[in-house]
């Protein structure tokens, strides 16, 4: 017992000093608000990671926004070019439609006349050759109709175009590569009063063969003549347009 007391007595001074120092420390900590929180260490790590993540996301977002703007500009440009191309398409199609009418590829109608041309079957005195309708006769009558302002002509439904041939092929006539036979019905669109002169005028070819060879020709003025267009055109493999250099 005395040994302990001696020990305490020996060290009590040091204990007291340490106690006082401890209390002082606590007082200092409290006075200066130095609350040491262990969690702060983890906080720094978390904060660091959070700040990094936020920075990364912001960079990606900025990048995305820039790319979206770029892309939108490209889309607008492409659409503008596309609209130009569509206008060009429409322009070309309109030109084609106009040219088709001139080429004779469209069905058309208007005032005009209808002619019927048939062989002379009554006269026994004339030779066979003189009585029948030849390709030459049809051609010359078509020529007269053109001279009188015909705007469209068809023979037995075959539309006359620039590349049309009217050629005898034995007993029939070949027109646009297809055969037609007498009697020949010629339809023409134009001023009926003028067109009828192809048959009535004394200087016309039809008048001549009707009078001299008895070829059976009748004509009729029509208020509406309907002429179908030629479906397909000849394939062009040698000709090409000379581009205007203007």
């Amino acid at each position: 017992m005395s040994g302990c007391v001696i020990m305490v007595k020996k060290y009590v001074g040091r204990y007291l000093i340490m106690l006082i120092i401890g209390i002082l420390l606590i007082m200092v900590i409290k006075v200066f608000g130095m609350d040491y929180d262990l969690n702060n260490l983890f906080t720094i790590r978390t904060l660091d990671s959070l700040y990094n993540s936020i920075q990364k996301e912001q960079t990606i977002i900025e990048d995305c926004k820039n790319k979206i703007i770029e892309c939108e500009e490209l889309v607008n440009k492409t659409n503008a070019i596309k609209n130009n191309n569509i206008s060009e398409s429409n322009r070309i199609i309109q030109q084609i439609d106009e040219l088709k009418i001139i080429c004779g590829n469209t069905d058309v109608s208007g005032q005009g006349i209808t002619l019927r041309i048939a062989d002379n079957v009554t006269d026994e005195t004339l030779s066979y050759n003189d009585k029948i309708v030849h390709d030459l006769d049809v051609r010359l009558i078509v020529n007269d109709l053109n001279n009188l302002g015909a705007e469209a002509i068809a023979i037995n439904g075959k539309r006359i175009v620039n590349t049309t041939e009217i050629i005898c092929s034995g007993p029939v006539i070949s027109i646009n590569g297809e055969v037609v036979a007498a009697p020949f019905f010629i339809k023409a669109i134009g001023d009926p009063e003028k067109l009828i002169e192809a048959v009535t005028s004394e200087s016309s070819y039809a008048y001549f063969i009707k009078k001299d060879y008895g070829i059976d020709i009748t004509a009729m003025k029509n208020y509406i003549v309907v002429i179908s267009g030629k479906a397909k055109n000849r394939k062009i493999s040698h000709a090409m347009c000379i581009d205007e250099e203007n």
Partner: protein
Amino acid sequence: MMNKKVINAIIFCISFALFFTVIIQYISSKNILKDNDYSTQYLASLRLQLDELEKERKELTQSLTSINQKLLEATESNKEIKEKNDVLQDELNMYKIMSGGYDVKGEGLIITVNESGSLEQYYTFQNSTGMILSLISNLNSAGAEAISINDQRYTSYTELVPVSNFFSINGKHVAAPFVIKVIGDQRTLESALNFPGGVVDTLKNRMGFTVEIEKDANVQISGNGKTKTFKYLKPVEQLVD
């Protein structure tokens, strides 16, 4: 006694060092945290900010994908239209040639029909228009793609009629001799013309004309003007309107 003092001194130093380290760490962390209140509330708000940014990033990434898709579609569709235009342009060229309104060139023949001035001239030009038309029909049956008579483009509207000393072609006056230019396959055209008993045979041997046929690799045929106005003719669709 020496040992004790040393031990004490060592213990004191170690303690002091430990204490010092704690102080340093504290001050360092204080510097980093900078007097702000880094309570869990603040951390939570940062986490919230991060969540919102992530959401925004996902939305923007989706937008970017969709606008890239839009760009791809626009480019594709533009390409299709461009290709269609090329086809249309070819078709337009074909119709330009067929219409007779445009200047054209290509291989073909140049045929000159003239009066021979000899005693065998049984026909004059004035009464031979039918033969010239026959010549043209034969050229057409042999695949002619463009024809002109004395530089007047021959079309379905062309007339060839004698008018006093001249001829009216496409409403213009031209004089004989006739120079007929044609574009097409030279061999086929020539063959059709020189057919025995054919047009050239008849013109030369039965009518007394001279006929010269010249092959030309670059026949140029002018168009008859690009516009044609119709006074009586209407396309059938217009009737329906």
